[in-house]
């Protein structure tokens, strides 16, 4: 919950609602990107970027190296699978 997980923004799902599809370890899910967009950084410009995702919200933009390091850290801490399971948890 507190460590978050890095994901890469794959597509914009809903521009007005600031929802994007993010790829987290191969799992795709819709997240909210309202906290990382502003007048200098549009919704569209997020596509392809890496972000740290906490409970379904993109909280900060990160570079690819940071994303890779954080993923490795989560794996080593044994948090990766459980976080991914959480992300996977689809709402039926």
């Amino acid at each position, binding site marked *: *919950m*507190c*460590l*978050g997980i890095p994901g890469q923004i794959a597509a914009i799902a809903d521009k007005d609602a600031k929802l994007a599809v993010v790829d987290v370890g191969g799992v795709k899910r819709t*997240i*909210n990107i*309202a*906290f*990382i967009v*502003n007048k200098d950084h549009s919704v569209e410009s997020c596509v392809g970027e890496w972000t*740290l995702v*906490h*409970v*379904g*919200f993109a*909280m*900060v933009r*990160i*570079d690819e190296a*940071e994303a890779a*390091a*954080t993923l*490795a*850290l989560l794996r*080593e*801490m*044994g*948090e990766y699978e*459980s976080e991914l399971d*959480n*992300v996977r*948890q689809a*709402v039926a």
Partner: protein
Amino acid sequence: MKYVDEFRNPEQAKALSQEIRALASRIGRTRERPLQIMEVCGGHTHSIFRYGITQFLPEEIEFVHGPGCPVCVLPMGRVDDCVALAELPNVIFTTFGDAMRVPGSKKSLLKAKAGGADVRMVYSPLDALQIARQNPYREVVFFGLGFETTMPSTAMTVLQAKAEGIPNFSLFCNHITIIPTLRAILDAPDLNLDGFLGPGHVSMVIGTRPYEFIASDFSKPIVISGFEPLDVLQSVWMVLKQIAEGRAEVENQYGRIVPRDGNPLAQKAVHEVFEVREFFEWRGLGSIDYSGVRLRDAYAAYDAERKFKLPNLRVADPKSCQCGDVLKGLIKPAQCRVFGTQCSPETPLGALMVSTEGACAAYYRYGRIDTSGLAKRPQSNVTEIAA
């Protein structure tokens, strides 16, 4: 050094370790009166245990595991309130998975679910909102929990619920804030801390400025730290360097994630939706002034505490558990009288045993190879203290 090979840069870790030792001997503490550094955040606690970071530190440096695991500081009375909400006939109670096994005075949410209550694990508050959309004739309550890291997400979800006019969604707000908590820790007379590792992801939201009082009012150094083992080591080194040079400042080791001003958009959402509570109850620490938030009046319709009648009782922690002493750094987890016996990750008595970010759970999992503090204050329970 069992784990050193797993460091992405073992050479750097060794070099830092040497510099830390040099600084520590310059400061000149002893193992009897060690330098105490509190890692505020449960993520750091986990990292420290996972990588056995104390083996890189000399004996005269000791970690005090702070209160920064939101699940761990949830008082029993609040868990009872959760269970009461979940057991209401028309309610779907939604929660992060971490909170499922936290014991209440009678049962956990997991037990309530087994007993027939409609408790559902969600990844995001947005999922809870989605459940509310799909079940317009049911009341969907989301159990909001966490420090400033998760607070903006909950705030944004409430804003969304209001914008869409979803009447059957409400928030049981248990969000807590780190700054009053740190102040309470610093004000405590029985505490003897020399410095802090500041939380990484809370700071990503609030920035580094709110910590300035720690340096200015209490003359203690604080270094905002990342979670990599090297981050933690480097942050310890930075704290020590401040002490050795007679400085007390807020420094940021995690600049790649934490901007000085935090995330203004996230702060705005939080400010719009939440206001400070006069006090909030913490497990093991008692009541701390201004340490929690609640929904503002404008969002009363989304406040589960106003929408439903809650028992809202204060429940004392079980006598045998010493979570408060662990949280204050007065004892190490393994020194709790029920550690590993009545209290284990399978049957947690205290919340520190529930989450992987809780000091007791971390100690249980990795503690047998970690000698942090134990050699200095030997106690029963732990048999495998590495020589």
